[in-house]
């Protein structure tokens, strides 16, 4: 078990973005099948379910950075270990939940058996959801943060602008004052000019800042895109559920017809199907069930395909985002430093002037 956990962790490290050197590989990830296995000696008969995780390399240039890509069977407890690891390493991330370990909130129709095929299938889908809902939460968070940032920034920029521009009023007064002074005149005149320059210097700085704000806006819209991808996946999910429900309904109907239970209308009018009619109906339903099952399979594959492609592109997006935003944020810091230095320089020059007053 420990060896497995170790392998799990190592595999995870290749999947989770690492800070500096390795970019994430372009992978497709899907949890496509499940199997029942037995553990230990015949005495214990410890059964458990494993799920198949398939990864496909879509970006050939990353081949050398990956180890051997294999498909891997993981059981639920190993997913738990992954989640625990993520919880410890990224404590600030709102981790999506794993599907339930045991049947919770069950009722008559829902079997308590964790080996029940329906339960297993739902869990399989849930495990895939685990990867994707993490993404959806992130998209919403990014959107909120950028929104707040842009709003607050524009208010700050306005105040910064006003404060600077008001200093121009000093310029006029100091100039007039210098006209009536003898020894102080020179220093006052220069002070007035410096204050004027302080007032006009803010324009360039704020123009530069607008460009940076645009870069943040771009990622605000990216966050919307991210959320749209999740919405699209949800729609496919719904399609799948509809298709599955359709098959389930058809199955129920078939059983009824088989057992000679007819619809309400027929019962009312007392008609009973002949054997021939019954067999005809059953065959029809069988055909429909067959078609439905195919539809389910197609939809399920479509969903799986979509998920892994989406996750792949999302990783790409994340890496690009880190590069872009780091750039933008760094530029913000340098710009603020530049503005502050200019202010400091101006006031130091004013001080020099004033200190020359005899």
């Amino acid at each position, binding site marked *: 078990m420990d060896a497995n956990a170790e392998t799990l962790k190592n595999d995870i490290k290749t999947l989770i973005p690492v800070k500096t050197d390795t970019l994430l590989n372009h992978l497709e990830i899907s949890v496509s099948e499940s199997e029942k296995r037995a553990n230990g000696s015949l005495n214990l008969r410890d059964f458990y379910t494993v799920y198949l995780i398939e990864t496909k390399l879509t970006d050939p240039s990353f081949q050398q950075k990956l180890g051997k890509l294999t498909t891997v069977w993981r059981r639920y407890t190993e997913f738990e270990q992954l989640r625990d690891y993520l919880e410890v390493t990224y404590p600030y991330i709102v981790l999506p939940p794993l599907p339930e370990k045991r049947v919770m909130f069950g009722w008559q129709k829902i079997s308590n058996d964790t080996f029940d095929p329906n339960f297993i299938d739902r869990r399989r889908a849930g495990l895939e959801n685990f990867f994707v809902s993490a993404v959806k939460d992130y998209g919403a968070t990014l959107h909120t943060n950028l929104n707040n940032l842009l709003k607050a920034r524009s208010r700050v920029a306005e*105040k910064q602008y006003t404060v600077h521009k*008001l200093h121009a009023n000093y310029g006029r007064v100091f100039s007039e004052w210098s006209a009536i002074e003898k020894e*102080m005149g020179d220093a006052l005149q220069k002070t007035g000019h410096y204050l004027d320059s302080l007032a006009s210097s803010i324009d360039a700085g704020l123009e530069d800042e607008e460009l940076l704000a645009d870069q943040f806006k771009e990622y605000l819209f990216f966050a919307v895109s991210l959320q749209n991808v999740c919405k699209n996946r949800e729609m496919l999910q719904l399609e799948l559920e509809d298709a599955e429900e359709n098959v389930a309904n058809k199955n129920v109907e078939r059983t009824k017809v088989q057992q000679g239970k007819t619809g309400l209308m027929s019962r009312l009018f007392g008609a009973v199907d002949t054997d021939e009619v019954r067999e005809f109906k059953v065959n029809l339903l069988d055909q429909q069930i067959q078609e439905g099952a195919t539809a389910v399979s197609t939809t399920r594959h479509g969903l799986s395909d979509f998920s892994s492609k989406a996750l792949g592109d999302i990783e790409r997006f994340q890496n690009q985002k880190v590069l872009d935003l780091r750039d933008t*944020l760094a530029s913000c810091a340098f710009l603020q430093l530049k503005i502050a*230095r200019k202010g400091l320089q101006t006031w130091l020059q004013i001080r020099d002037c*004033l200190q020359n007053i*005899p």
Partner: protein
Amino acid sequence: MANNTSNTSAVLDVVVENKEILSILKENKDFDQSSICSGSTYDNSLVQSPSLESFSTIHDIENLSELNMDENSDLCVKIDNPQKHLETLETYITFRITTRVARIEFSDNEYVVRRRYNDFLWLRQKLLECHPFCIIPPLPGKHSLMGQLDRYSKDFILLRMKALNVFITRITQHPILSCNNHFKTFLTAKQSDFNLHRRQKTPVELKVRTLSHANSSHAILKNRHIEFDKIKTYLTTLSEKLSSIEKISSRINKERSEYVTELNSYHPIFTTWATSEPELSELLQNIGNAMERSSAAQNALVQSYNTTVSNPIKDFLTYIDVVQETIRKRESYQYAYEISMEELSKRHSEKDKLLKKVEANQDNLECANESLRSDLQRWQLEKRQCLKKILLDFVNKQINYYQATVNAWEYVTNELNQQNTSVKGNSK
């Protein structure tokens, strides 16, 4: 007991006499020269000092350098240690006045006395009477904007104390005023002696003359005196300019205050965002922190406005008003001279008597002109130093703010530069 023929109320006298008896009884009890402890008494009054303990010494005043105290000069006066006194008829505050002096007229080298605001009013009045054409520095107002409501608030008392220090320093630095006898008494006399001195009558002649001339100060002069007129115009313009500067500064300060509020809503967003971005977390935190530091520095700038800009400028404007008033006083002398000249030309028969009057007035006028002229010259120097200091204080506060901001952002950019160089090193 001196039989006072004063026309003040008998009730007041009784109380004062009461004080004197008790002080005679306590004659042998010297004033505690090193009165750092608040237990020192001021005659018989009840001293309430616990609430004022916290600002007992001058070191609690911000900007000690404002007081321009030159400890090496031959006369140095310091005002501190306010104390509240509760008496039957009134409550009032006294201040401790410490004088260090090395002049022949003073018998000792160090004096410590306690005086109250009214004593300062008396001193100023005396100086006005003795030197009508010197520019006597203004005193802080009797009341604040809130009327009598906050007379005993810590802020009001501290502000008043600071202003009194400025007042006294200006007098000690004045070549004529610092040698005035009343001033010497004010600094050195023990309470009982001082009270006696205060109640002395001023020579009626002197009083009357200043009064009547003050009334005629609105009269129009025949001949304008160009020199003094120029100064009047200059002072009016200077007042205007300083007033403008104060208004502009006040407006900027208000905007800055709002700027700080916006910044305080802005920087937490970076910290919040950092929690959902593992790779960008450090950079976002750094930026948030730098913004917070800058905001705090700017807030300090905002808070310093009153003490650095508003109060000093307002104080100086009152000083300018005093100068204007003194110039107007001179005009009343000129008026008297001109009137008497007119009279002379009209009444030839009383020529001799009138001639003497004219000459006397002319002499007075010349003296007034000279005295005022020389004190104005001295005042111009003082004005320059005072305004230079106000401007430098204002500029230094700005520099502090900008320096703190530069430091904050340099931290972030240095981190970034370090990371860039290390990445370049790795990729080689």
